[in-house]
Every structure is written in structure tokens, then in C-alpha cells.
């Protein structure tokens, strides 16, 4: 049993479990699924700075922080106790493309060539951590949600503004991957 769990999980298992988050949160506490709002609650809790957007009773949304805290703990458990000893299998064309850009550490979830501390104070680190992270935080809040709030919760409840947001997420991601990232990877 443990051997099966340790193997990479197929998309339909992961997708089903993620989809079940929607009814779980609704049935357990009338909560709508959304993760990026946790970043807003952190701002409201730590540095509201008299900005009206952060002046609300964030403690009422504490469930969201408990949820994302759980995500970190779950990821720790999976990485420590359920990890697959075999290297990750990457699609052949993607692996070839990334190798041509010097990214060859494909055995882990994230490539060490980018995601390590010694990259932090380089141009690459500035782009991949600081600017990239900033765009994720700014963009999701501007859009009013992220992949969970719009693509999953919003589409599940058939809200067309969420479809617009989801399409724009994909447009942005595809544009970055094909037009800009080829240059950023050479930094």
C-alpha cells in the first residue's frame, strides 16, 4: 500500500481530491475555496497600514490561514515520508528544451539551477523569486482570485467572470513561456 502511495499520483486522483475541496469547505463551514486571499489576510494581520483594503476583521477568515498552514504541513509529510525514490519523469520535448537553456536538474520538483539560495542575489534570483512572486501576489489580488478561487471554485459554480480570469491566467502563462521566458532562462 505504502509503495503505491509513494509513486507519483495520477492526474485523475489528484484532480478528484482537489475538486472535493469545494464541497468539503461548503459543507463543513460555508466557506468558498480560495487560497490567494490568505495573502490578503496576512497583510491585514501584519501590516494593515491604514489601507482600507486591509481594514477588516481578518480573524473571521482565520480558517483560510489554518487551511494554507495545513498545505505546508501536508507537503512536509509527503516530502519526508512519502517521497518517491525515483527521479521525476519529465516530458521529453520539455526536458530537451530546458536542457538547451542549461536547466538539466530535472529529477526534483524544482530545478536547483534556479531555486537555490545561491541564486538569490543574482539577476536570475531577482526575476524568478522577487519579480515573479510579486506578480503572483499582485495579479491574483487584482484578479480577485487565483487558480483555486477562479479556475476551480469559480468555474464549479459557473460564474463567467471566473472563466474570463482563467483564460487570462492561461494567456499570461503561455505568453511568458513562449515569448519572454526563453530570455529570462539565459540570465
Amino acid at each position, binding site marked *: 500500500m505504502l509503495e503505491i502511495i509513494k509513486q*507519483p499520483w495520477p492526474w485523475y486522483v489528484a484532480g478528484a481530491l482537489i475538486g472535493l475541496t469545494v464541497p468539503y469547505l461548503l459543507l463543513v463551514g460555508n466557506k468558498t475555496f480560495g487560497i490567494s486571499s490568505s495573502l490578503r489576510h496576512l497583510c491585514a494581520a501584519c501590516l494593515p497600514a491604514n489601507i482600507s483594503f486591509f481594514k477588516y476583521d481578518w480573524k473571521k477568515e482565520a480558517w483560510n490561514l*489554518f*487551511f494554507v498552514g495545513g498545505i505546508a504541513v501536508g507537503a512536509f509529510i509527503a*516530502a519526508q515520508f512519502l517521497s518517491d525514490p525515483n527521479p521525476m519523469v519529465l516530458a521529453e520535448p520539455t526536458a530537451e528544451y530546458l536542457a538547451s537553456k542549461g536547466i538539466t536538474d530535472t529529477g526534483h520538483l524544482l530545478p536547483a539551477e534556479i531555486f537555490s539560495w545561491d541564486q538569490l542575489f543574482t539577476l536570475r534570483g531577482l526575476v524568478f523569486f522577487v519579480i515573479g512572486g510579486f506578480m503572483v501576489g*499582485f495579479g491574483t489580488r487584482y484578479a*480577485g482570485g487565483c487558480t483555486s478561487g477562479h479556475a476551480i471554485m469559480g468555474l464549479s459554480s459557473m460564474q463567467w467572470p471566473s472563466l474570463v480570469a482563467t483564460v487570462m491566467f492561461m494567456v499570461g502563462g503561455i505568453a*511568458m513561456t513562449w515569448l519572454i521566458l526563453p530570455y529570462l532562462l539565459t540570465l
Partner: protein
Amino acid sequence: MKNEFQQAPTADLQQRELDSICVNESELVHPWWHNFKYSAWGILFGIVFVKAEIISWFRIQEMFRFESFHMYGVIGTAVIVGLISVLLIKRTKARTIHGEEIHIPKKEFNKGQVIGGLLFGLGWAITGACPGPLFAQMGSGFSVVIVTFLSAVAGTWVYGLLREKLPH
């Protein structure tokens, strides 16, 4: 049952409704440790994120390069399961475990979904993570992602600061 819970004040609901994702107006107030039922699901969620390699920067590259079905399968299945669940909840008029009527807030369209969505998409392809996977990447031991995470918090904060000046 009524005696166990006090009514929650609703004064700041309108403030939070500005941001449709942020409205969870349960009428009930529970002791804080009730929040562990969300942590429990979060733990399962984090395990799924790692075991299905959803938090992998490489899987996001594959997705945007159209070279793997994996992420499309994950998101597509999640939407279908979520959609069926919401339909069933509405059809059966299901209530929460505390007997409350289930309410799904309506999302209003504004320009933010276009501009913000595009900005997030650009960042997603760089970092290989949306907000959920950021927590999972940190939890699974990629400590440098703390920097990405703090930048994301900063981005959210700057949005709050500039909100009135941005087109919506």
C-alpha cells in the same frame, strides 16, 4: 444549538465583498480550534500537491508548452468534480454540518480579472507556482521559495495600496 453560538457581526461584510473571493459570512461563531477541520483538509491537499507533482516548476512548464496532459487533467477533473458537487448541493438544498444554508457568493466582473489575471499568468509561468503551491513548495523543503512567498505578500500589499488608482 442556538445557545452554543453567538451571532457574528456583519459590519465589515461590505468591505470584504469588494473582493468577491474574500466573503465567507457564516452566521456562526465557533471556538478557534474548530479551524483544525480546515487544517486537516489542508494537510491532505498539501500531500496531493506534492504527490501529483502539481507544485513542480517543470509540470507548469510542460503545461504552458502543451507538452503534457498532466496539469490539464488535474485542473479539468477538479472542475468537473467541483461542478457536480455544487449542482448536487444546490439540487438537494444541502446544508452545512451545522445546519446553515449554503451560500456561494456571486463574482462580479471587473477589469481586474483581465489585467490582474494576465499579470498573475505571467508570474505563474516564472515561479511555477500559484499561491497554493507556494505554501507546499516551502513545506516540502525548498526554503528559498520563502523569498517568492514574501514577494507575493508584498505584491498583495502594494495592490491594496494602489487599489483606488487602478482601473476596475
